[in-house]
């Protein structure tokens, strides 16, 4: 799964058309005419878990008239990403007073999320937008919801069971893009280090793998170290300080998320090395963009998280208003958000009201 080689353009084209292909795949019709993603072609013809011709028994509602309750189950509501998704979902539904959005905080715990899912199913929500803290642990809950006709749309962190849709930012490719950009700015030569998040999360593991695989193609660049800062800015300051101690000649640092890249930049500044070390992050949150503007950070891979949340909400409404059901799917269809490489030169192209 990791070694799919895609050009930037390919990823970009996928993201915009993803929604259309998704609708087609979910319905299990019209797929033959949709050639962008070969996998979708397989979805309709390949062995579906149940008889694809069976009539769906899912009840449909009018999402713009009937009373609709959508649950947003976050991994950890206090992160900027989770907040931006929630806002995106709310904005998408703001014009329709019949739609009620309720957010639930998973507190970074799969157990908590499982309990929330049980409540949400019992309370008869019409759709769930979920960011799985653990794709395996949440799979039974997701399956139960889908079986009861509640479509589940996952955000960034997948559930390992076939469900209505996964809306995700690029992960492996974001690592690849950052690696190429870093290589370019250090003239393809020198020592680099990685600041990791919490090990074991698909998204961040893929990001790191993409970075490592791509750096491997530059013979004169060496990854000298990789340390975890648990996604925290304050911890990243400490980790970066130790990198500066151990590797005085370090040329670049790639942090798996922006908060840690910001911490690394603060440490570099405190060591009077502002601007001398290439520092990249991933996500594209507001503060990181400001630090790229001020020259503290070198770049990031930006995803419009508001748009991502709003996309998930659109799919939820589409599923609620139709007989589309997971039973016709052989695997979860994906919508991939457009990744934008942000550097000091391009940061001004991210409009103020796209900064989450």
């Amino acid at each position, binding site marked *: 799964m990791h070694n799919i080689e895609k050009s930037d353009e390919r990823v970009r084209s996928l993201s915009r058309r993803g929604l259309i292909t998704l609708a087609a795949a979910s319905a299990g019709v019209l797929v033959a005419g949709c050639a962008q993603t070969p996998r979708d072609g397989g979805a309709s013809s390949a062995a579906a878990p149940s008889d694809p011709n069976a009539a769906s028994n899912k009840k449909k509602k009018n999402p713009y008239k009937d009373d609709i309750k959508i649950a947003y189950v976050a991994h950890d509501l206090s992160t900027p990403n989770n907040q931006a998704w929630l806002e995106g979902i709310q904005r998408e539904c703001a014009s329709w007073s019949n739609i009620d959005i309720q957010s639930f905080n998973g507190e970074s715990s799969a157990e908590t999320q499982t309990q929330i899912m049980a409540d949400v199913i019992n309370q008869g929500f019409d759709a769930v937008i979920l960011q799985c803290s653990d794709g395996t642990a949440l799979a039974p809950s997701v399956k139960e919801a889908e079986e009861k006709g509640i479509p589940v749309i996952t955000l960034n962190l997948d559930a390992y069971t076939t469900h209505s849709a996964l809306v995700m930012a690029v992960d492996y490719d974001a690592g690849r893009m950052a690696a190429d950009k870093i290589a370019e700015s250090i003239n393809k030569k020198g020592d680099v280090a990685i600041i990791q998040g919490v090990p074991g999360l698909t998204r961040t593991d893929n990001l790191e793998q993409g970075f490592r695989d791509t750096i491997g193609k530059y013979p004169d660049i060496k990854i000298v170290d990789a340390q975890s800062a648990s996604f925290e800015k304050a911890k990243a*300051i400490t980790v970066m300080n130790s990198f500066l*101690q151990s590797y005085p000649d370090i040329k670049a640092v790639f942090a798996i998320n922006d908060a840690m890249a910001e911490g690394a930049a603060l440490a570099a500044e405190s060591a009077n090395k502002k601007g001398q070390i290439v520092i990249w992050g991933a996500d594209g949150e507001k503060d990181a963009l400001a630090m790229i503007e001020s020259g503290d950070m070198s770049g990031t891979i930006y995803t419009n998280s508001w748009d991502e949340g709003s996309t998930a909400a659109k799919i939820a409404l589409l599923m609620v208003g139709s007989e589309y059901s997971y039973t016709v799917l052989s695997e979860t269809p994906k919508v991939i958000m457009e990744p934008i490489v942000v550097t000091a030169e391009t940061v001004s192209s991210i409009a103020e009201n796209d900064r989450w």
Partner: protein
Amino acid sequence: MRNLNLSRLSKPIILVAFVVTLAILRPSSFLTISNFANVLWSVSVIGIMVCGTIFVFLLGGIDLSIGTLAGLSAVTVVEVIKNMGATNESVIIGVLAALGVGAAAGVVHGLIITKFDIPAFLVTFASQMVFLGLSMVITNNQIVSAREPVLFTAIGSMKVLGFPLPIYLMLLIAVGSWFVLSKTTFGRGIYAIGGNPVASEISGIQVKRSTVLCYVFSGVTAAIGGIVLAAMTQQGMASTGTGYETQVITAGVIGGVSLLGGVGTVSGCIYGAVLMGLINNALNLLSVPSTQSGLVQGLVIIVAVAFDALQHQDQSRRKARRILGRLGGDKANESPAA
């Protein structure tokens, strides 16, 4: 030899052993002033907080709210700065407001605990959630940036003689705490209350008033910790400081604080914080992968604490032997159970 008090030296011995080992393994990167500055910088927030929370520990109480209270203080200071246009005055008002929040939280804790006689564990566990909730409401769960003014960010990172400001703050607060605990009647009273609250009450110590004051100290140092964290990271959010309560309690216990009350010193707490920072620093400098660092960290803490405890045990054995020796008889040769 008999008079050599090893137990007093065991903590310095552990620190020196640690430093020597690391100096041999990583001579170029470890033994530098800037690395020591980094280690102290990384534990300064824990160090600041433990110097206030020790008062609560000595009572036999506990304050689980300090992590989210630090978060609430961080949020308070950055919100004030943001809403007053990032001026120097806003920093002063923001810092005072945050300190006020910390002190008020301490008063409330102390009053609830003394008036209603509810266990501190429950009160501070509940208020932990209240503070987190308040921070979430105030910030609408967003990150509030405070990259300006310099007066604010300097609190977290300005260097004086090569050492960042939070280190000096930690030392200042430690000296203050040490002074109150060992040189004032109030301080010695805290040890007495922790040892035996009923006897203290009878002997004329104002237990309730002292208890409230102890929680105020804990709250204020938590607030200072939160202000420093916010200044260091140039932002404040609801999750700032969460989890610090565990680290602060760990630092205290490593440093010899008894959670039952009555036992513990400020120097011990600072030792605990510094040892934790050194272990972390060692893991980083030795490039221990993150999958293994938790394991190594836990084992090193157990070994260090066991070594320390062993010295104390030896000392109490020797003391017991001496007493028995003075009493005379054959018992002097037996090794009494410690």
